[in-house]
């Protein structure tokens, strides 16, 4: 056992996935948690601090695991963390699925670590007609057992009080005295005996939520509900985002930022290189937040007033679905489709996240099992899934032409997603992995937890995206001042005209898309293209190079070689999709 030398003790929270471990962690440590990656892996975990009775504990939220004989990377990390030792372990067990949870519990106790058991979700177990004899469980396991409800905080202080009683436990496995390593069957039979003596299940009637649970995975109702949820989510995201922009942010920016920017513009003499970089170009003698492209104008307006409201609305709705427990059901509904694209149903979660911002979407592909899946999912997200910022711009520019054109853009992106996914699955060696997913019961979300998650995600977006937009705008300003943009657009103009039927001016915005797709979209809108040309340009722009932030994350997640492959696929599919739409819409130059 390490730690302790500096007076700080090490406390591990160990449990299966979906047992309320993170809620318990937040209850114990408060909000100041540090999220980090386990060295050498892509698995993240949370660390926090607990002060109690003159002692300081470093609390570590170990990644959820079903077993310490690892079946995936998260479980590998869990095993290593447990093997690194601890001054105490809080084993978080789900009272509604005790049998299965005890398997992990036994593995931890076999390692001789001092353990306290938090028997979590006892409220839900009671609802389900499951009665657990806590005293008997304590006797069988030989460690303190405290019933808790992490989301409400019930039992937490009693749990911490009994931390001092943490012990290695005394459950003897059959065969343990014969000095051989206990196997899986030994554990399961020991668990069977424990369950037999502590748990009673009584039959109870189905509630409305139960019926909804069954309907959500039904072959007919499940598809219908899935469709309704997706359509409903996106309508409410649009409604919320637009409402905030029109009623709050636009007036705010007009009233506060515009006078400041105008004042700076006057001070800089209304023109010149420094003026163009800081304030931007004046459009018709005025500062235009969307098109001026200065740090003080577009640099602040686009991320804060155009993109942030959609991102926040998106994360709010996603958090609601997540905490209600709908997402695993969506995975079931989408599995058959995704299976044919080399993924399994759970890849729907990163893909949906990508609709908010590609960066967290690509990061979330870590939940997938194989490198092949991660490559397919990440490539698909960066190519064919428009982030909230891009969508805001699509609606802003193409939306003026009418719903038909917006639908054309979305339909093209969706078709590209399907076709590219299928092609990748067929041509990449390997196989589609099978879905194995636990489906938690529906729960009414806690708005406090929801608010906190929303805040953490929005803060993440602000810290990562806003500096990148500012940097992007700075680079655009510098490139343009150096004449590099003009040179590149001249070189690429024949390609754009020949393949896509676009005028040469359109090549500059599409190149700018490398830095910020959403800014580039604004520029396209100002070119006076025909509706069909605008659709082609929008599709091509949406699918070509991801924004800088996405590019960096892709690099980190995939590594150089596979990033290059992904980029090649991206350019080919953007051109193919653009050309296909051009042919369908019959654009002549």
């Amino acid at each position, binding site marked *: 056992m390490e730690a302790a030398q500096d007076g700080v003790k090490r406390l591990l929270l160990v449990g299966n996935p979906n047992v309320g471990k993170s809620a318990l962690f937040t209850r114990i440590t408060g909000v100041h948690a540090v999220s980090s990656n386990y060295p050498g892996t892509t698995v993240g975990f949370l660390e926090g601090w607990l002060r109690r009775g003159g002692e300081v504990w470093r609390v570590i939220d170990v990644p959820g695991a*079903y*077993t310490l*004989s690892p*079946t*995936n990377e998260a479980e590998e990390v869990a095993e290593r963390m447990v093997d690194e030792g601890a001054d105490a372990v809080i084993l978080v067990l789900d009272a*509604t*699925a005790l*049998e*299965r949870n005890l*398997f*992990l519990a036994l593995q931890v106790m076999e390692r001789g670590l001092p353990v306290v058991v938090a028997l979590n979700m006892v409220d839900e177990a009671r609802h*389900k*007609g*499951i009665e657990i004899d806590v005293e008997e469980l304590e006797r069988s396991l030989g460690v303190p057992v405290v019933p808790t409800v992490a989301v409400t905080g019930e039992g937490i202080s009693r749990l911490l009080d009994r931390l001092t009683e943490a012990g290695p436990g005394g459950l003897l496995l059959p065969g343990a005295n014969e000095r051989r390593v206990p196997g*899986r069957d030994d554990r*399961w039979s020991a668990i*069977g005996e424990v*369950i*037999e003596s502590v*748990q*009673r*299940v*009584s*039959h109870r009637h189905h509630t409305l939520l139960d019926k909804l*649970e*069954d309907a959500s*995975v*039904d*072959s007919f109702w*499940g598809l219908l509900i899935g469709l309704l949820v997706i359509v409903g989510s996106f309508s409410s995201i649009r409604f919320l985002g637009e409402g905030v922009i029109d009623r709050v942010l636009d007036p705010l920016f007009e009233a506060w930022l515009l006078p400041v920017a105008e004042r700076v513009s006057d001070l800089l003499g209304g023109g010149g290189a420094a003026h163009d970089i800081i304030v931007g170009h004046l459009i018709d003698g005025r500062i235009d937040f969307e098109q001026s492209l200065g740090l003080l104008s577009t640099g602040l307006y686009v991320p804060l007033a155009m993109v942030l409201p959609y991102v926040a609305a998106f994360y709010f709705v996603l958090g609601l679905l997540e905490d209600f427990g709908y997402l*695993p059901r969506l*995975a*079931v*509904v989408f*599995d*058959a*489709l995704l*299976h044919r694209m080399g993924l*399994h*149903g759970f890849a729907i979660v990163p893909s949906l996240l990508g609709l908010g911002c590609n960066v967290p979407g690509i990061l979330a592909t870590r939940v997938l*099992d194989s490198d092949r899946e991660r490559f397919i999912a990440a490539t698909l997200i960066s190519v064919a899934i428009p982030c909230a910022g891009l969508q805001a711009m699509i609606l802003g520019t193409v939306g003026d032409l009418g719903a038909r054109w917006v639908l054309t853009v979305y339909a093209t992106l969706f078709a590209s997603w399907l076709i590219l996914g299928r092609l990748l699955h067929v041509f990449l060696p390997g*196989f*589609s*992995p*099978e*879905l*194995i*997913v*636990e*489906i*938690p*019961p529906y729960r009414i979300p806690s708005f406090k937890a929801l608010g906190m998650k929303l805040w953490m995600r929005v803060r993440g977006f602000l810290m990562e995206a806003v500096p990148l937009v500012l940097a992007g705008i700075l680079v655009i300003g510098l490139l343009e001042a150096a004449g590099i943009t003009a040179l590149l657009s001249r070189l690429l103009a024949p390609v754009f005209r020949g393949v896509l039927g676009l005028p040469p001016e359109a090549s500059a915005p599409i190149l700018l898309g490398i830095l910020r797709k959403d800014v580039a979209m604004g520029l396209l809108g100002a070119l006076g293209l025909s509706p069909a040309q605008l659709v082609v340009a929008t599709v091509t722009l949406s699918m070509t190079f991801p924004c800088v932030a996405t590019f960096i994350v892709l690099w980190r997640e995939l590594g150089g070689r596979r990033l290059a492959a992904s980029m090649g696929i991206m350019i080919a599919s953007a051109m193919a999709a653009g050309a296909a739409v051009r042919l369908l819409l019959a654009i002549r130059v």
Partner: protein
Amino acid sequence: MRILHCLSCAAGRRRKCATPDALTLRDLPDGAFARIVSIRSPKNAGGLGACCTERLEALGLRVGKIVGKISGMPFHGPVTLVLDGRQIAVGWNISSNVLVVPVRDKEAHDGSGAGRG
């Protein structure tokens, strides 16, 4: 050997069967309960991956357990089960490799959850 035996009788290739009414999880009708009699070794099952038996076990999908089938999605989609009062979903390929024998509702309620209820 026993596993092969079961699968071939499920496929109707053998006349003498230890468990003549066994069928795969995917063929079990929605709403029915059944006892798991065998899970085919993942090595031979295309696309299952080596990790699966252990993950399935960890989720409670083991020989001898009673499961209820909630639904199977169309187009070779996943099968959703209820096991120990919790729902889990497994891919179509897995559901084709789990062999079960149907039980009556009464038995299912007595046997599931391993309680005395």
